[in-house]
């Protein structure tokens, strides 16, 4: 635009005037470039600082709670039951989620031909991934808790989390299987192995690091979920919380945090200051777990790379 207007002036300007005009244009473009660069620098640094500040703030405000032994106890100011339930629900959900989403991924990558069926399944996965987790929580309450008579229990919570994380698991495991080169499969089939035997002995072992990364990332989602558990797992613990009974109602770290800060001061039997301290501790624990999960997923990822470069 600006170049056109500079060269299509009606009077043919003298060389000097043209040079000056071009010089002005170049200066203007460079100034624009410098301004845009500094704005982008500013925006990026702003975003980074916000992220870092949030993490540091959470860990910092949680430190007083984290350094107090009663925080890890079973009393009303301790989180031992919630910590136990969080890991319980994590394992119970993965028992459903891992084989089912891996199986679906194997079907889509290894068996199904690209066609209407695979695109319908992918469309279903995207749609399910877009359903808000509170709506899936209501769905779980209706189907698992009421219609299937599981009532408000850990099992109903785990099944709801299965619905919630199925699309994510599918995508991660599909990515893992897609990294396995086609030649490996062809080699297996050429040796006369059946498809299932090829998958079992060739594809799955090669895709293992990716599968483990996927497992870890879905674990992070399960630990952080709260909205889907409000109506399916409840907000309170029974007396026999430290048992493996899947029919018990129980809360997790996230739902406890929501109950502490969301249901009005005093409803948990603690003073407001105690509630805030406890909530800060729970937030810090959640963030630290998340960091740990991220580091674990990363080091597994690095393992893949080392393998690929060594091979």
């Amino acid at each position: 635009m600006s170049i056109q207007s500079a060269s299509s002036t009606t009077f043919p300007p003298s060389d000097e005037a043209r040079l000056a005009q071009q010089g002005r244009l170049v200066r203007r473009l460079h100034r624009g470039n410098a301004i845009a660069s500094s704005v982008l620098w500013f925006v990026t640094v702003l975003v980074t600082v916000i992220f870092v500040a949030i993490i540091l703030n959470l860990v910092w405000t949680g430190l007083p709670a984290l350094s107090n032994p009663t925080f890890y106890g079973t009393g009303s100011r301790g989180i031992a039951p919630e910590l136990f339930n969080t890991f319980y629900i994590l394992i119970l959900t993965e028992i459903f989620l891992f084989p089912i989403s891996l199986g679906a991924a194997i079907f889509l990558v290894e068996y199904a031909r690209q066609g209407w069926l695979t695109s319908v399944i992918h469309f279903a996965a995207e749609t399910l991934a877009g359903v808000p987790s509170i709506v899936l929580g209501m769905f779980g309450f209706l189907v698992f808790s009421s219609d299937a008579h599981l009532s408000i229990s850990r099992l109903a919570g785990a099944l709801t989390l299965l619905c919630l994380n199925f699309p994510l698991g599918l995508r991660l495991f599909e990515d893992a299987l897609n990294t396995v080169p086609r030649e490996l499969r062809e080699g297996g089939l050429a040796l006369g192995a059946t498809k299932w035997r090829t998958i079992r002995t060739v594809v799955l072992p090669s895709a293992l690091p990716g599968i483990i990364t996927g497992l870890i990332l879905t674990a992070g989602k399960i630990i952080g979920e709260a909205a889907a558990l409000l109506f399916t797992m409840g907000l309170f613990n029974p007396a026999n919380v430290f048992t493996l009974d899947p029919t018990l109602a129980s809360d997790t770290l996230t739902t406890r945090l929501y109950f502490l800060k969301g249901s009005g001061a005093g409803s948990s039997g603690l003073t407001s200051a105690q509630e805030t301290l406890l909530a800060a501790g729970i937030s810090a624990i959640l963030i630290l777990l998340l960091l740990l999960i991220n580091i674990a997923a990363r080091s597994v990822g690095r393992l893949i790379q080392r393998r690929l470069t060594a091979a």
Partner: protein
Amino acid sequence: MQYSQRARWSDQIARAVFFFCAILLIVIILAVIGFISSKAFSIFFEHGGTSFKTFFTIDNWDPTGVNDPTGNGHPSFGAFGLILGSIVVTLFSILIVIPLALGTAVFFTEMAPGWLTSILKPLIEIFTGVPSVVVGFLGLTILVPFLSHLLTPVAKSLGIVGATAGFGWGAAILVLVVMVLPTTLSISIDALRAVPGSVREASLALGSTRWQMMRRAIVPAASTGLGTAIVLGMARAIGETLAVALVLAGNSLPKHLFSLGVFFQPNVNITASIANDFAETSGVSQDAYWTLAFVLLTISFIFICISRYLASRSVYK
């Protein structure tokens, strides 16, 4: 002979099992849509229900009838305030997210020095999975007091009613920015990365500056991918529950809807209303919450369809 027969059988069984797993996904999404829509329309047709017009245009959400002014306990199903709340917080938060996410994504893919990339990349990954209730807690303990502290003198000097609590749409919008930004940012980065290097080289070879190259070549080439990022961010924003519920803290729309203070008064939206009240209701009043869930489901389904349409039109994947 026997061995190969057994192998073929196990192959068939494995295939059937995996097929079942994949079909389960379709079953789940159909069940979600079916069960929710089976409950969603009863408040319009059953006894004690309401009309479509009331539901979408009246702001009086009282499905249990406890706040009935006549004292007869007649429920009221005007969800206008809730729907408006969800739309307002989603739109305003995405308006803040767009420049932040696009600016950071362009910088990240085109200009960022190595040390900044190595800090930012894990940060984005961590924040994509940060529990929404933790962000809500942070909003409640830091953002709300801060807004209240900041706005009390301003509101007093301008004579704006009520804008002193710090709770409300303003806080919800800022909390949503933190929740949505990582999602939009990481999808935008993927979209920009998918643009091949030849586009950059061609643009630079024509003598454009780096900024011209980004604005006139890279961003248009990735525009559909960036559109997908924004739409998926909106889908996430409208369904976000607990973070928003903690900082909205209201029961109804504020009285003066068209005043400056409306962003800083306790307020409502769909998800917060479901999270706070769904569990304590039953019968027709519970059906009203299913209608709300259906509204959410429809909106997010539309967003997913738009994002799929955009993705199908993109040149570089």
